[in-house]
């Protein structure tokens, strides 16, 4: 039974691409109405595959994806009307103007004729493209194209908005505008799911973060919860001399009595950096420095900060390259 306020329910979803590449492996999570969710994961983790499943572009090998209580693969046309999808590639008709692109989209999605002009004007305003509405899309910058793609995905008043790498390759100004629009959509009651590789984007926007790795769900929660659960309230960063190269984070954890997340391993054999998890911050910092000194190491530099989502991400998925 799907809870009444769930707009997306993903259950035991598996997808195997040709060549036996398992992109998703028994993935399950729900998205509540009005939530703003970030899908995080290393390259090839299965984020884009997941959103393609939700939009019906890909069919599951096993498991199910339901949107508004309907199985996606069995109700594609109805589901397409309520989903707005902005793919990773800026897929726009280059030889149309912004106005024509939106008008074409409105016709395909059956936006009431009497509303088309007003809606397009509003969308152009939101995207900051009113002054360029009659220029061909091929003359736009990358940021303008992303903004146009974003407003196109909500033109038909979509309840569920899916954004794949919404700010990929855009400048700071465009990114700021896109973020503001996404927040506004959430405030209007729309559900937004976005995939991103930018941790600051997820931290700035997401109510909840879903981390996928190797096609499996590895963590889910608010950014604050995840930080507490996987890193702690504070992260102490120390630059150390005298830590032998054979000694790693486990050895240091044993010596300090604090969990050491990782220790750098510089190629030139110079001072090494250690990241140490802490619950009480200021109180722990002098204790850590004291214990390091007692163990024969010299602390060249020490700092303390609140952990970022990037720290959480690395703590969960590790730092090994994936592609």
């Amino acid at each position, binding site marked *: 039974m799907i809870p009444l306020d769930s707009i997306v329910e993903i259950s035991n979803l598996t997808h195997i691409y040709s060549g036996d590449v398992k992109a998703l492996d028994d993935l399950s999570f729900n998205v509540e109405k009005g939530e703003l969710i970030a899908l995080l994961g290393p390259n090839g983790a299965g984020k884009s595959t997941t959103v393609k499943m939700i939009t019906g572009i890909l069919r599951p090998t096993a498991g199910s994806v339901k949107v508004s209580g309907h199985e996606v693969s069995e109700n594609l046309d109805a589901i397409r009307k309520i989903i707005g999808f902005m793919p990773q590639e800026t897929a726009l*008709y280059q030889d149309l103007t912004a106005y024509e692109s939106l008008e074409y989209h409105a016709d*395909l999605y059956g936006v009431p004729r009497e509303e088309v002009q007003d809606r397009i004007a509003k969308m152009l305003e939101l995207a900051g493209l009113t002054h360029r509405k009659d220029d061909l899309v091929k003359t736009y910058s990358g940021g303008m194209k992303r903004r146009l793609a974003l407003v*196109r995905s909500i033109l038909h008043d979509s309840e569920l908005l899916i954004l794949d790498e919404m700010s990929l390759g855009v400048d700071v100004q465009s990114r700021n505008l896109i973020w503001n629009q996404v927040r506004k959509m959430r405030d209007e009651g729309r559900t937004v799911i976005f995939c991103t590789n930018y941790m600051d984007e997820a931290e700035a926007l997401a109510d909840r973060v879903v981390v996928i790795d190797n096609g499996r769900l590895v963590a889910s929660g608010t950014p604050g919860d995840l930080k507490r659960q996987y890193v702690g309230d504070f992260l102490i960063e120390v630059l150390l001399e005298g830590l032998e190269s054979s000694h790693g984070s486990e050895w240091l954890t044993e010596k300090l009595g604090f969990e050491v997340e990782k220790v750098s391993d510089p190629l030139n054999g110079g001072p090494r950096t250690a990241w140490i998890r802490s619950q009480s911050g200021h109180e722990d910092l002098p204790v850590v420095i004291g214990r390091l000194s007692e163990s024969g190491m010299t602390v060249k530099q020490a700092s303390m900060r609140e952990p970022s989502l990037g720290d959480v991400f690395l703590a969960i998925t590790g730092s090994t390259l994936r592609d």
Partner: protein
Amino acid sequence: MLRAIAAIVKKDLKQAKRDPKFLGPSLIIPFVFLLVYTIMWTSVGGGESFACGLVVEDISPEANEMADIIENMVSTTNHTWFSIERYDLTTADELYQSTSLIAYILIPEGFGDNITSGQDAVVVMLINNANDDVVKNYVHRLEAAVLLFNQGAVYPEFDQSDARIAIDETFSLTATPSNLEYMAAVSILLSLMACALTSQAMLTATEFETKALQDTLNSPTPRLALVIGRTIAAIPRSFSASLISAPVICLTMGVYPAGNIFILIGILLLTILALVPIGELIGMKIRNREQALLASVLFVMAGFILGGGMAPIGLSPASVRVVAGIIPTTHSLILWPRVFFSDSVLGLTTSSLFLIGTWIVMSAVVAHLMKREVERS
């Protein structure tokens, strides 16, 4: 659905207007073919070795003498216009009806008796006169054979009033075009074929390359609306090249259609309908604008040559004819000159139905592939 179709048509036509590069091949290919053909025909002398049948039903010495002359005559040019093969009447007639033989000569029973009794003896020549230059050469060959048989008649003042035999020439059409006129006419068709195929292939490849088509494919628009919309947009786009090439070819070559203009437009329309989904398929599979252009140009040129655009295919090996028969351009090339040069609607049904069938089948294939494109398993 009508709104979606109208939107797709409007969008496709705007794109074509703003990026008319697809017109290039449509305007270049026909004129290149025409130029090559003109040079070839005027300097080399045209096609060679068209098979002509010989049926000898009479066993008299006169009939054998006549057959020997026809079979062993040496061409007055360096080029062998046709070969002579002996057949029985039934076989020759079957081959003739199926256009495997362009012509056959019949020396009928009683030929020798008529000569010896002083009556007129007749040699019958049946010609599928699809091409005037070839027909002329068949007829001249037979005329020469008769002259030789009659011994004494000398070109150009040959007088057959006292001859022992006369020629009964049977033409199945009232008028036949020359090779250059024929080539001019089919060049107009070639221009349209190139435009229909390359424009659709380039458009589809571009839309896949830029992923722009995904927005349309991911929309709730029915696939049928998509296919209909894209086909409707392809019609005026494909005719656009003909608006330039047809008047230029007609005026420069002095060749004008003799047949019903509406039927001719109908043939062009059927050609567009059959080729557009093929162009869509090429674009969909290649997904690169430049490569799609090359592939579609190659398809058009191969289809044109294989379909008999430059030389009759009736005498090619059966396997080649089978392959040619399944290519829609072959059927357009069958229909177009037939109506262009005569005001006749006879013999159009089979090829018209084939083109309609190609349109329906290929459109269904394209619709299915597009559906798979966005709903992959």
